[in-house]
């Protein structure tokens, strides 16, 4: 048995339009990989295939040697694959603490209990506090999420996803829309993620990618163009032409 996520020969086509072409990828515990590519390269299609929102045309996805291709989105969450969302899907009218409590309670299967106090049930409070600390959110713990700064909302997003205790974490543009002044916060938070977690970052902010990723995969037109260390990628002329040279990032 191999620990982690193994993707082999993944293809996805909408009619004649091929959006994923023979993608293979490994994510092992402790990995810090980034997926980059120009707009329309198929990055979000790829994550949707992994999390189960889309079904592949062919290819296999295995978690710890077990095929998870037939599992639903919610089942894959329980199996250990989690993805941060677009910011609009936070619980905006709830406090930061409640936002963290919900996934923690759900992980323990307690959200059907009607007569306990949510704050304090199931021994989740310690975990709430340590997540708040980890993401430096303790001071704003009782604030309603929609009143937070954008960068902090992204941190809540990450903390919530981490609360599900995934083994595979997919960060979908964690710095999107975050003003550059708050960007170091995000990098710091990623650096502080548990060591044994397998992390895949999808991001436009190249400074961030080069800071946090150990390996970078370049996706173009639904297929992997190349994979390598940040230094290798930075030196690759094809990447310069196709991506960096085009002025993105």
């Amino acid at each position, binding site marked *: 048995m191999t620990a982690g996520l193994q993707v082999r020969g993944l293809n996805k086509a909408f009619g004649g339009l091929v959006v994923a072409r023979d993608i293979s990828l490994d994510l092992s515990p402790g990995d810090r990989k980034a997926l980059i590519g120009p707009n329309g390269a198929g990055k979000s299609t790829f994550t949707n295939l992994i999390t189960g929102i889309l079904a592949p045309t062919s290819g296999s996805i295995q978690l710890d040697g077990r095929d998870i291709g037939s599992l639903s*989105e*919610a089942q894959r*969450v*329980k199996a250990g694959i989690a*993805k941060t*969302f677009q910011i*609009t*899907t*936070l*619980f*905006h*009218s*709830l406090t930061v603490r*409640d936002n963290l*409590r*919900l*996934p923690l*309670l*759900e*992980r323990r299967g*307690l*959200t*059907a*209990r*009607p*007569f*306990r*106090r*949510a*704050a304090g*049930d*199931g021994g989740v409070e310690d975990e709430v506090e340590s997540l708040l600390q980890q993401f430096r959110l303790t001071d704003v713990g009782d604030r309603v999420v929609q009143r937070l700064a954008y960068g902090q909302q992204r941190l809540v997003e990450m903390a*919530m996803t981490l609360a*599900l205790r995934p083994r595979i974490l997919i960060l979908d543009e964690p710095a999107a829309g975050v003003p550059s002044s708050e960007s170091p916060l995000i990098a710091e938070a990623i650096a502080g993620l548990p060591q044994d977690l397998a992390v895949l970052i999808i991001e436009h902010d190249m400074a961030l990618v080069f800071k946090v990723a150990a390996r970078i995969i370049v996706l173009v037109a639904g297929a992997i163009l190349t994979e390598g260390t940040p230094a290798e990628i930075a030196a690759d002329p094809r990447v310069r032409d196709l991506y960096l040279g085009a002025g993105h990032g």
Partner: protein
Amino acid sequence: MRSLVPFVVMLVVAVAAFYLFPYNLAFLTRVVITMILVLSLDLILGVAGVSTLGQAAMYGSGAYAAGLFAIHVWHDPLAGLAVGAAAGAVVAFVSGLFLTRAHGLTLLMLTIAVTEVLQEIANKFSAITGGTDGLGGIRMGRVLGIWKFDFVGRTGYIYAVCVLFVVVVVLKIVIGSPFGLALRGIGDSPARMRAIGTPVTRRLIAAYTLSGAVAGLAGAMAAQSTALVSLGVYDFQLSAEAMIMLILGGTGRLWGALIGTAVFMTVHQVASSVDPFNWLFVIGLLVLAVVYAVPRGLLGLPDEVKRLLRRLK
């Protein structure tokens, strides 16, 4: 504890009303019963974010169940309430199986359709329900075998206030529970709840059933206090007015349901006695004022005023 203050205020207001308006107890009792109905709507609409115009389906079923139970089985008021709540819960559970999968206009129409079907059934089986004439001949026994329903309506009022108090306490606990938190999460973002692995539809059916039980309870109280159940308990107007009262007061926090009901019914009562032919102008303007001026309801009024004052400074 600060969180106990609203409960104390509620009791003080209830007692004060009893002594200040000793001759309006019948009206006050109707206000209290309507409050229970609006509370049931707050749970499903205010907390879980399910827009429904069909709360009358459960209210009416609770009323008929309690009425029939009192006539044919036992005239004990509390047992009647339990039967009414059960009837409301059953109707909500069964209809919830398909309602909780719909959204938007489709959901609104389905909730209306369920209510209309029930009303038509009650009309059809007039041998049992009394049809258009109403289900009469309900005679209630003493509350707990001790207090008789009196002519002035003192017992009826105190009884209703006690039930209201219990309902508020129970709903407060439920909203503060993991289940309640999950409902608030669903109200904010059902997609995210699914993403963290919550069986959203199952939670919604549970919430709708609980809401139905409370609405059925309100219907049962109405049946007991009027001693007659008419087809009007299934009126669309009832569901629509409950929604107006809830939004007027402010959603999601229970107290809004109480304040909205009290204000709406008082305005309705005063406006329709001052000028019955044109009171609809007053209600229409009131509704529009809420939507445009205080979208978060009367509960949000202090915040709005604060913001306004801050801007003036």
